[in-house]
């Protein structure tokens, strides 16, 4: 009981801090200095119609590289923590009933469509809402659908690892090409900027975001496959 009281007291203090923040907050009416720069210069400097994408991929590209690295480390740590000696053929005799015909047919119909949607979302990330992280999550959810249909299905860890590390290497490689040909690490002006709003515009942003999408999709898939493959012994 005393624990609840202490927790409540702590939360009341925190709530007072939040209330103070809310009372003292007045919404801006004009953009602040940084946002003003992004709003003015994105169209001419980066050429991406979606300013959030321009910030994530180009202006703050190094942060995104770090973020993808953090995700990779998470997937690696999960694989390490849940690692166990897998005996082939042992798991197949689990007592689960097979999933029905309806689920199988439905997932066979839906998986390619979901994959296509994911690819569409990360290829058009510089024009419309969406991008590598959302597209990667949608690609991973198609893997999730396959896992739900057949919990005993085994995915090729080697294929996931090759996609993951290959796109990561290509991402860093494009960064270094930007250092050589453009204005700095991960500069997108190594390809022509094109006109604002076209499919092939914004320089290297579609390429970089597609690579991020593949990498994020592979990382999320590997997390889910690892969590789903840990059987009770």
């Amino acid at each position, binding site marked *: 009981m005393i*624990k*609840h009281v202490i*927790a*409540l007291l*702590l*939360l009341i203090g*925190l*709530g007072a801090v*939040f209330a103070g923040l*809310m009372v003292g*907050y007045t*919404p*801006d*009416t004009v*953009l*602040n200095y*940084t*946002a*003003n720069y*992004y*709003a*003015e210069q*994105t*169209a*001419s400097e980066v050429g991406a*119609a*979606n*300013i*959030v994408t321009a*910030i*994530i991929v180009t202006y*703050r590209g190094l*942060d*995104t590289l770090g*973020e993808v690295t*953090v*995700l990779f480390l*998470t997937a690696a*740590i*999960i694989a390490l*923590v*849940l690692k166990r000696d897998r005996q082939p053929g042992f798991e197949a005799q689990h007592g689960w009933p097979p999933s029905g015909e309806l689920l199988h047919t439905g997932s066979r119909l839906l998986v390619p469509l979901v994959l296509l949607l994911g690819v569409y979302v990360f290829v058009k990330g510089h024009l*419309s*809402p969406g991008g590598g*992280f959302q597209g990667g999550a949608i690609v991973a959810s198609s893997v999730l659908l396959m896992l739900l249909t057949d919990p005993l299905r085994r995915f090729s860890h080697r294929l996931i690892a090759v996609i993951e590390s290959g796109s990561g290497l290509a991402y860093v490689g494009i960064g270094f090409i930007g250092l050589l040909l453009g204005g700095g690490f991960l500069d997108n002006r190594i390809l022509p900027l094109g006109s*604002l*709003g076209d499919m092939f515009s914004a320089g290297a942003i579609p390429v970089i975001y597609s690579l991020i999408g593949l990498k*994020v999709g592979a990382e*999320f898939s590997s*997390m889910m496959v690892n*969590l789903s493959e*840990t059987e009770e012994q």
Partner: protein
Amino acid sequence: MVYIAMLTGFILILMGLYGALTNRNILRMIVFFTLANTGTNVVLVSIGYMMGRKAPILDNAVPAAEAVARIIDPVPQALVLTAIVIGLGITALMLAYAYKLYELKRSLDISKCRELKW
């Protein structure tokens, strides 16, 4: 509307922290951490919102020349996008450790983990 969203976010943070502090089941604690995470994201996005402006995407409705007067602040949105993705990574990591702990102790109750208690 900014104030409504901000208030909701703060309430969600407080709810999440209350649940995480008063529960002893480790899986429930992780659920409440994701609740607090969502609340933080709502607060951050609501700070970037400005009345009567559009999303930061340039098209026919928002030409590049008028962008400064027509769009909202894109920086908090980029920040929150990162935060959501990392949030899933953190949740997955916590779940993996919770599962490992369960395998070791055969229980989800954290009051049974006394090795580091003094």
